[in-house]
C-alpha cells in the first residue's frame, strides 16, 4: 500500500504533463480529420479527404519530399565529417577535442539569425554563386546539427572505449581501416544512428536559416507552414495534416533515440555477474 500511495502522485503528474503535451496534437489530428469544426467540443463529422487531398497536392508532396531529402543528405554529410574526426580525437589526438567542442558551442552561442547573416556575408564576399542555393542551406543545417551529432558520437565512442579497442585491434594485426569497419563501427552503431537522427531532426524542423538563406526558392515543411499561415487563403485542414506528419516524424525519431540510448547504455553493462 505504501508503494502505491508513493507512486500515485507521480502518475497523476505524468497524466497532466501528457495531457498538456498531447491535447494540442490530438486536436490538430482531429482537425485534419474534421469535416466542419467550429463551435462544438468535437468536430461535426470526420473525413479522410484532407489527407487524400494533401497527397495529391503537388506542392504539398514536393515540400515533404524536399525536406526529407535535405534532412537525409544533412545527416549523411554530418556523419561523414564527424565520424573520422571524433574517432581521431578519441584514438590519436585528444587535443583536437577542444577545437571540436568550441565548434559545437557556436550554434548555441550565436543566434541562428546571426549565423545565417554571417553565411550570407561570407558567401557574398567570396562565393556569391552559392547564395540562394540548397547547398548553402545544407551547409548551414550541417553547422546547426554539428553539436548534437558530435555529442552523440563522442559519448558513444567514450562509452565504447574506442581507444582501447583500437589499440587491441592493432595488436591483433588489424589496419586502421579494418579496425574502423570491424571493431569500431559495430560497437558505436547506436551512437551513429542517434547522431544521424539528431542531424535529421535538426534539418527537418529548421526554419530561420531556411527562410534567410533560400526563402521560397526551396520551400521546406516549416516554410510551407509559415507561408500558409501568412496567406489569406490558408487551408487550415491541410496545414493540420502537415503538422501531424511533422509531429509523427519527430515522435518516431525521438522514440528511436530513446531506444538507441538504452541500447548504448545496456551494451556497456555486464549481463551476468559470475566469478
Amino acid at each position, binding site marked *: 500500500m505504501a508503494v502505491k500511495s508513493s507512486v500515485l502522485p507521480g502518475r497523476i503528474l505524468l497524466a497532466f504533463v501528457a495531457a498538456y503535451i498531447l491535447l494540442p496534437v490530438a486536436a490538430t489530428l482531429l482537425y485534419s480529420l474534421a469535416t466542419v469544426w467550429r463551435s462544438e467540443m468535437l468536430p461535426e463529422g470526420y473525413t479522410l479527404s484532407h489527407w487524400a487531398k494533401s497527397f495529391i497536392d503537388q506542392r504539398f508532396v514536393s515540400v515533404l519530399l524536399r525536406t526529407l531529402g535535405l534532412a537525409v543528405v544533412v545527416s549523411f554529410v554530418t556523419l561523414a565529417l564527424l565520424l573520422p574526426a571524433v574517432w581521431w580525437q578519441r584514438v590519436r589526438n585528444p587535443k583536437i577535442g577542444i577545437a571540436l567542442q568550441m565548434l559545437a558551442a557556436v550554434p548555441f552561442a550565436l543566434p541562428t539569425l546571426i549565423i545565417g547573416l554571417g553565411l550570407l556575408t561570407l558567401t557574398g564576399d567570396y562565393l556569391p554563386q552559392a547564395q540562394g542555393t540548397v547547398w548553402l542551406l545544407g551547409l548551414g543545417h550541417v553547422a546547426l546539427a554539428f553539436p548534437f551529432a558530435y555529442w552523440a558520437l563522442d559519448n558513444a565512442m567514450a562509452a565504447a572505449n574506442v581507444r582501447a579497442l583500437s*589499440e*587491441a585491434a*592493432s595488436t*591483433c*594485426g*588489424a589496419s586502421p581501416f579494418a579496425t574502423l569497419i570491424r571493431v569500431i563501427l559495430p560497437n558505436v552503431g547506436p551512437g551513429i544512428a542517434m547522431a544521424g537522427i539528431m542531424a535529421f531532426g535538426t534539418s527537418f524542423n529548421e526554419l530561420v536559416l531556411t527562410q534567410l538563406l533560400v526563402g521560397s526558392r526551396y520551400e521546406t515543411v516549416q516554410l510551407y507552414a509559415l507561408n500558409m499561415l501568412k496567406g489569406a487563403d490558408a487551408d487550415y485542414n491541410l496545414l493540420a495534416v502537415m503538422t501531424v506528419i511533422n509531429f509523427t516524424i519527430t515522435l518516431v525519431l525521438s522514440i528511436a533515440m530513446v531506444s538507441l540510448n538504452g541500447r548504448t547504455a545496456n551494451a*556497456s553493462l555486464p549481463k551476468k555477474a559470475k566469478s
Partner: protein
Amino acid sequence: MSTPIHLGAITKSFNGKPALSGIDLDIAQGEMIALLGASGCGKTTLLRIIAGLEQPSSGQIHFGTRDVTDLSVQARRIGMVFQGYALFPNMTVRQNIGFPLKIAGESASAITARVNELLEMTGLGPRGDHHPNQLSGGQQQRTALARALAPRPDVLLLDEPLSALDAQVRDHLRDEIARIQKTVGTTTVLVTHDQAEAMAIADRVVIMHEGRVEQASRPEALYEMPASGYTASFIGTRNRFDVSPQGGELRIGGFFRQAAANSAAHQVWVRAEALRIVPAGQGLAVTVEAKLFQGPITRLYLTCHADGLSQTLKLDAPSEGLRGVEPGQSLHVTFDQESADVFAA
C-alpha cells in the same frame, strides 16, 4: 616463434618531461619478466614502447635480430593483454580469439582448430558462444589471454592483467598465466604494481623507479640482496633505520655494529620477519602498538623510543609464537647483523 628482446638506451619524454631515461634490458627467449614499480615509474610506457603503441624518443628495440623500433604495431607480431581486457563487445569469445587469425587471412578450418585449442587451454570451452558482457572478470581475462596467444606471437605483453580481479580469482589466474606461459614458451613481459604477483610468476623481476631500471634480478636474489634502498623499500616488508656513523661505525642498540662507508647518514634495512623478540635487557626496548593476525603469520606494529631512535617497526612472526603478546605490552627485539642491508645515503 618465441624470440629474445633487446632494449637499448630507450628514452621517452612527454611534453619535455622525461618518462624513461636510458633503459637497457635484455630478455631471453621464452623468459617471463615482470616490470614492477609504483605508479608513474614508467613501466607501462616501456611496455607500450615494446608493443609499438608508443614511439621511443631515442633508443632501439630488437626482437631477436629484427630491429622493430620503427615497425608498426601490426608488423611486430606481438600479443597483448590489456588492463581492462579490451575485448570486442560485438564478438563472441570464439570470434574474439579468432579475430587476429581472421585478420591474418587464415582459413576457416585453421581458425576453428586454433580457437578450439585455445578454448581448451584456457578452460573457456563452454563459454565460446558468449559475448564479453556475459562473462565474469576472470573469464574475460582468459579470453583476452587466448586472443593474444592465438596468432602464436613472438612476444607476449601483459599490462596489469590481474589488477581488475578480486583476490581469490587473481591468485588462481596468476598461476594459470604462469602455467600457460610455460606451456607455450613465449617471451613475456608482464607489467604489475603487485610485488607478490611479480615474485610468484616471473623468471626475473625488473624494479623500475623514476623512469630507470633500479634492479633486474631473479625474485629470490631481489628479496635477499636488494641493490639499493629503493629496492629494499619496495620488495617485502622492511624496517628502515637511519643511522649516522659514530667513530666510523654504524650502531643500533648494543647488537648491531658495522663499519660506515662514509661519514654521511646510512640506511639500514631489516626485513619484518628478521626482527625477533628477545628477553628483557637485550636488543631494543619497544611497545606493541597493534597486532594484526594474518593467518599463519601475525604482524606486530611496535614503537621504539630508545637508543636515539623514534620510529614504528613491523615484526612478522608465526602466529603461534605471538599468542600471548597484546597491544600495550613492552618487549625487546633484535635482528642478526647479516640480515641487514646497509646503503650509504
